[in-house]
């Protein structure tokens, strides 16, 4: 099982390392700074940390010695508009970082607000805006979900063919590329939104997939925790089916998928929209092992009463599928070593957690 995981928090990056039967962490990197995304590149061992400095903008750092030292990189940025447009874009959040395929050493993808995708081919040293997506006319129909502007939070790279990409955009639906980002198409038939007029509820371009997660051994299986429910695709995000009447709730942000079993997934449900807290103040992780036919709320080791909210990147599973880690906006942190059946609380006093990620 994984021996290291990272916690991207409102006040720094914490690294937890296995210490016998326990976990050990020290002082965070970037103390006091909001860490919006963290990525361990398992191809070369580098660790990337994206910061969202409240005053001084988005920054990106890379460590080549597992956090002992960091190098500040030039972060993704838009080119300066030639016409001096006052509304010209500026990156205001690096929301997701993902590695390219195993056959693409040094390739890193960054999903940002406002609704753009950037690519680096040199380990994050320089970045290129994917204009083929940015220039799509449909982008003007996207809108903010959680933030004022739309953002790309999920970047899935098909390890069978690293040119095949799938994006999750809040709120801009699901987009796919079969040619490494040269061209894009809007997919996601079957997704449904309640926040649009009835005749627009199935409009693909305004869907709010809170998080997409693909099965590592079966990349065609993509689970989606959507604003309006739980959805599953068996064809790589082309189409989705919905699971309704899932208790305690179908709303949530995070989803994780077993790396070897596409029928097993975990979600962190809550009361939707204006509440965003656990149902009946009882925190559970909802687990399915049969491809969504049934979901079983797992509560052993999780608090009650609880007002924890688990953000979309704050639930992760390791390569065995047995070890999970979950963090909340209340600064609580849990791990599980039995596939999410029982949970152990590691901390009750961390800063608000944006992401957890195994190293």
């Amino acid at each position, binding site marked *: 099982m994984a021996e290291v995981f990272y916690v991207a928090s409102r006040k720094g990056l914490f690294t937890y390392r296995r210490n016998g039967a326990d976990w050990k962490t020290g002082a965070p990197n970037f103390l006091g700074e909001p860490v919006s995304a963290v990525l361990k590149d398992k191809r070369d061992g580098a660790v990337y940390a994206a910061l969202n*400095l409240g005053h*001084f903008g988005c*920054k990106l750092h890379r460590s080549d010695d597992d956090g002992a030292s960091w190098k500040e990189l030039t972060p993704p940025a838009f*080119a*300066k508009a030639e016409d001096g447009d*006052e509304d010209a874009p500026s990156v205001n959040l690096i929301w997701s970082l993902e590695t390219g395929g195993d056959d693409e050493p040094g390739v890193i993808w960054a999903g940002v607000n406002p609704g753009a995708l950037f690519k680096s081919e040199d380990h994050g040293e320089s970045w290129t805006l994917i204009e083929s997506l940015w220039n799509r006319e449909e982008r003007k129909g996207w809108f903010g979900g959680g933030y004022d502007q739309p953002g790309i939070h999920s970047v899935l790279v098909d390890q069978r063919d690293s040119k095949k990409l799938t994006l999750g955009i809040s709120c801009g639906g699901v987009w796919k590329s079969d040619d490494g980002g040269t061209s894009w198409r809007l997919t996601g038939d079957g997704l449904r939104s309640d926040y649009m007029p009835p005749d627009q509820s199935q409009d693909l371009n305004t869907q709010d997939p809170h998080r997409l997660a693909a099965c590592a051994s079966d990349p065609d299986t993509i689970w989606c925790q959507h604003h309006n429910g739980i959805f599953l695709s068996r064809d790589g995000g082309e189409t989705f089916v919905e699971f309704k009447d899932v208790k305690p709730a179908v709303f949530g942000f995070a989803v994780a998928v077993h790396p070897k079993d596409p029928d097993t997934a975990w979600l962190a449900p809550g009361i939707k929209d204006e509440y965003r807290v656990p149902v009946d103040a009882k925190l559970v992780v909802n687990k399915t092992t049969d491809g969504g036919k049934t979901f079983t709320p797992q509560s052993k080791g999780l608090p009650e009463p609880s007002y924890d909210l688990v953000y979309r990147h704050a639930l992760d599973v390791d390569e065995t599928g047995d070890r999970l880690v979950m963090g909340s906006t209340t600064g609580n942190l849990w791990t599980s070593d039995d596939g999410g059946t029982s949970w152990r609380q590691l901390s009750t006093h961390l800063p608000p957690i944006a992401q957890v990620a195994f190293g």
Partner: protein
Amino acid sequence: MAQVSFTDNLQKHLPCPPKAAPGDTVRAVMEAVFVENPPLRGYVLDDQDRLRKHVNIFINDVAISDRVTLGDPVAETDRVFVFQALSGG
């Protein structure tokens, strides 16, 4: 030349000692500073070279009014202060 100084909060991220810089507008003065300290640009300005939303620049005792083109005039004897706003934290 105008005397430019930076909030201590920026020193946490990168060196930016007080600097005498030529120029008759805030833009000109800051560009002169950035020539010698390129990484500082992204901390003070956004992708479009606008003043970041939660950064303030004062000329002597007065906050600049043009946060987009940084066209406020600067005199040779002016002091320019780059501050962290109280918002944005």
